[in-house]
């Protein structure tokens, strides 16, 4: 394993600013990126992550001074472009959809001036590592989202860049693909000394970086090693949450209603033997679920697992081919039920060109809420979304987090008995996410509202009472997050986090049958029946000093992948 260089930084920013049409996107950024490390640029949507990455790639002009390996990015950025690779945000954004997997890789090699002799061995290694080798001739457009992102990474790496710049490479892809993506990155950093600069809004991903830069509203609010922030048993999300809040309490949204929204049926939703086909594709395969009144229920699974299809069947947008569904004792699609459910779709359900107030009024009209009742609830929705005093603001000018909470408020305007939320929090910052979830919990506790949520963000699974992990149209695990983690421990053993003072020798633990995953400067170790003493013995025998070794709760991602693979 290559030793981490402590040499001069590879990218240096001094007072870098960027303004788009009068909007200050970056304000006086100072930054140093060290070579052969993964540096995470984290922050909510609109904080300037993409802008910063574009400036580093030399595809965006800026004010201030920026150097890339000693070259002035302001004047001579063309000179360094073959030494870097940049992958823009969005699934498959850098790919040519009409080209095959191999044609895409070859094209990238050609424009980066890589001769076929140097290209081919690297190409084979990348295709092997990503599991894309059997699909060389498949067109990019026929790949799944996760495969597209992996191919995007292959294309970026085939030129053997010294610096790899990735803009949210894992947003919207499933945990399994995300895991493979990180394995490749770690491998290139370790073996080729590649420097990676990676934008992300997932906090659990930031924990895998050697260094993090936290952006907020175009400024750096933290820059350093994640270990500096993470106290015992606390993740980065927690740390940033506290940093952003600065010791303040998160304002609690009181819900001024005492009425319970439900009544009658104890099972809010029951799904029995539901299957759904799209042509010959089985999107749902005999789903059995029973969700209790007031439960916060999470649906997790890779893309295409059937989460959205299931929700659409529950609210009556799709009709299952077999099986029965009842929601509060009623059939999906019946007019009585429509008054008792709320739905917030993946794609935004607000009208961007209308003001906040006009959106709420529109939803009031749609749900038949009017007069004094509408006025009362409007005040409540504004309060909940933190938009009091901004009623006249045009919705598209709001930050994403506020839009999401407004959309949530609108979806609850009719006080539904059951609320369906399809990926409600992607791209939202930790504070907004926390208050979002706090609100959802309150709806469930105070009003007895049942909430069904789908999410890719596995950290959020912990906020749910119960979760169902779906794969290929089936529910493969169904329980509370704690019980699922316990089942994982039972079968896979305890997970330990080790933070050594210098990088571990390759094979130190793997040769003893212990699984190792690097997390920045730290490592996660696990094996069935693994005990702390066993790890300590290995460390002592090689004289490896460490900052700490501790047992941790298994990350939800590992639990998720465990259940996926147990089936496979």
């Amino acid at each position, binding site marked *: 394993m290559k030793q981490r260089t402590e040499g001069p930084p590879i990218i240096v920013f001094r007072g870098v600013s960027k303004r788009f049409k009068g909007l200050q996107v970056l304000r006086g950024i100072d930054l140093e990126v060290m070579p052969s490390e993964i540096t995470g640029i984290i922050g909510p949507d609109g904080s300037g992550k993409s802008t910063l990455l*574009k400036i580093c790639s*030399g*595809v965006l002009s800026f004010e201030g001074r920026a150097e890339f390996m000693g070259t002035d990015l302001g004047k001579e950025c*063309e000179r360094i472009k073959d030494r870097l690779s940049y992958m823009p945000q969005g699934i498959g954004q850098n790919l040519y959809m009409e080209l095959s997997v191999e044609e895409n890789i070859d094209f990238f090699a*050609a*424009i980066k001036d890589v001769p076929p002799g140097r290209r081919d061995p690297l190409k084979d290694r990348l295709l092997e590592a990503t599991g894309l080798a059997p699909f060389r001739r498949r067109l990019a457009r026929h790949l799944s989202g996760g495969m597209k992102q992996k191919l995007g990474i292959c294309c970026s790496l085939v030129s053997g860049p010294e610096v790899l710049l990735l803009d949210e490479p894992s947003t919207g892809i499933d945990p399994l693909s995300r895991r493979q993506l990180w394995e490749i990155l770690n491998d290139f950093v370790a073996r080729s000394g590649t420097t990676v600069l990676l934008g992300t809004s997932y906090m659990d991903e930031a924990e895998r970086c050697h260094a993090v830069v936290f952006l907020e509203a175009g400024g750096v609010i933290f820059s350093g090693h994640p270990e500096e922030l993470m106290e015992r048993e606390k993740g980065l999300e927690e740390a940033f949450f506290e940093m952003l809040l600065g010791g303040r309490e998160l304002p609690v949204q009181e819900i001024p209603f005492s009425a319970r929204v439900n009544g009658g049926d104890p099972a809010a939703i029951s799904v029995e033997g539901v299957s759904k086909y799209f042509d010959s594709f089985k999107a749902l395969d005999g789903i059995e679920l029973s969700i209790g009144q007031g439960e916060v229920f999470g649906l997790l699974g890779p893309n295409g697992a059937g989460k959205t299809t299931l929700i659409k069947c529950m609210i009556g947008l799709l009709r299952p081919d077999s099986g029965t569904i009842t929601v509060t004792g009623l059939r999906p699609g019946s007019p009585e039920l429509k008054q008792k459910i709320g739905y917030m779709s993946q794609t935004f359900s607000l009208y961007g060109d209308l003001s906040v107030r006009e959106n709420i009024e529109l939803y009031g009209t749609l749900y038949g809420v009017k007069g004094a009742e509408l006025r009362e609830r409007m005040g409540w929705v504004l309060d909940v979304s933190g938009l009091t005093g901004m009623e006249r603001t045009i919705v598209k000018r709001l930050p994403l987090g506020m839009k999401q909470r407004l959309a949530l408020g609108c979806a609850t305007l009719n006080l539904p008995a059951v609320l369906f939320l399809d990926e409600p929090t992607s791209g939202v910052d930790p504070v907004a996410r926390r208050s979002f979830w706090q609100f959802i919990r309150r709806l469930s506790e105070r009003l007895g509202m049942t909430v069904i949520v789908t999410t890719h963000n596995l950290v959020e699974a912990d906020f749910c009472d119960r979760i169902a992990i779906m794969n290929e149209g089936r529910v493969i695990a169904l329980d509370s997050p704690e019980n699922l983690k316990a089942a994982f421990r039972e079968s896979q053993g305890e997970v330990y986090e080790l933070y050594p003072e210098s990088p571990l020798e390759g094979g130190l633990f793997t040769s003893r049958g212990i699984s190792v995953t690097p997390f920045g400067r730290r490592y996660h170790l696990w094996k069935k029946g693994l005990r702390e003493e066993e790890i300590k013995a290995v460390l002592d025998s090689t004289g490896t000093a460490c900052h700490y070794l501790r047992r941790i709760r298994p990350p939800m991602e590992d639990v998720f992948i465990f259940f996926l693979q147990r089936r496979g």
Partner: protein
Amino acid sequence: MRKVLAITAKEVREIWRVRLFLVLAFFVPFTMFIVFGYGISLDVEHMPFAYLDDDHSQLSARLVEKFKGRYFELQGELSDPGEADRLLSRGALRAVLVIPSEFSRNIYRGGDTEVQFLIDGGYPYRALTVKGYAQAIIADFNRELVTERLERAGLDPRPGRPIRVETRYFFNESLRSSYALIPGLIALVLLMNPAVLTALAITREKEFGTIYNIYSSQIKRWEFLTGKIIPYLVISAINFLVILLTVRLLFEIPMKGPLANLIPGAFIYVLINVSIGLLVSSVTRTMVSAQIVTIIVTVIPAFLYSGLLIPVANLEGGAKVMAHLYPTMHFMKIIHGVYLKDLPLPDLLPQVLLLVLYFCLLFSVGIMAFRKREG
């Protein structure tokens, strides 16, 4: 050069695999040519026509007979003036000849008489032409009547018309507008198609995000743009040949000069239009806006200022300057020179050189306007 070829190879694969793009590349220009070719004609011929004869004489029948021919197509006799109104307003007739009841009696008496000619004036150009035809036919009939009258009086009729005009039309002997218009359409199709395709090819990469692969590589601007336009030059060459064949075989319009005289001009003309597409794509972000802007800057001026419909000599002031600024007019001169006049190459040279100049200018501006770094 390796990079240029890599770009070209990628582009060709994409064009070939996206059926919509193939349609856009080949089917659209061909269809456009056919539709325009059949639809566009400045000839006013075969005008549907009827008459209202209150005279019912041999003389009125002779007059009606004179209207039959290439210009008017007799639809029949009408019974009352209301019917004439109705049919004119429906567009079933373009003109109605009304012959009053005293028509022949007045003439035989040696006096003069009137006929009424009702014309659909909705489209002034056509109405004026129809009026001209009618006047010419009546004048001819008048001359016959005068001749007959003089002969009947035993006089020599010849001094009645001392000057006769003998007209001969050069280049387009039968004076068919299609002989000028349809070859002229080549300039239109070779203008719009390469420009739109090129503009789309580059904005497509902007819209999908793949342009960042280019922005973030050391590939030079000319390498990327050259590689990008090669397939569209080939497509335009194929379209050019297909259209030449269509002109010859379908519209049966002969080319008087040799094809070789047309090719250099056509090649540079396509290069110019590809460069226009390039320029448009530098200032637009999406495919839709690129398409709209390209059509606005190419087709509209081409119709108005190229000499296709309106001879440039008839344009005034600003319009005339515009006409000379747009390259289409110069290529139109080459087309007409080859198709109608069989001009030798040296006579076409000034136009060709002008086009070369346009190309150098537009292509360099196009390359400079393409920025590998966003603002």
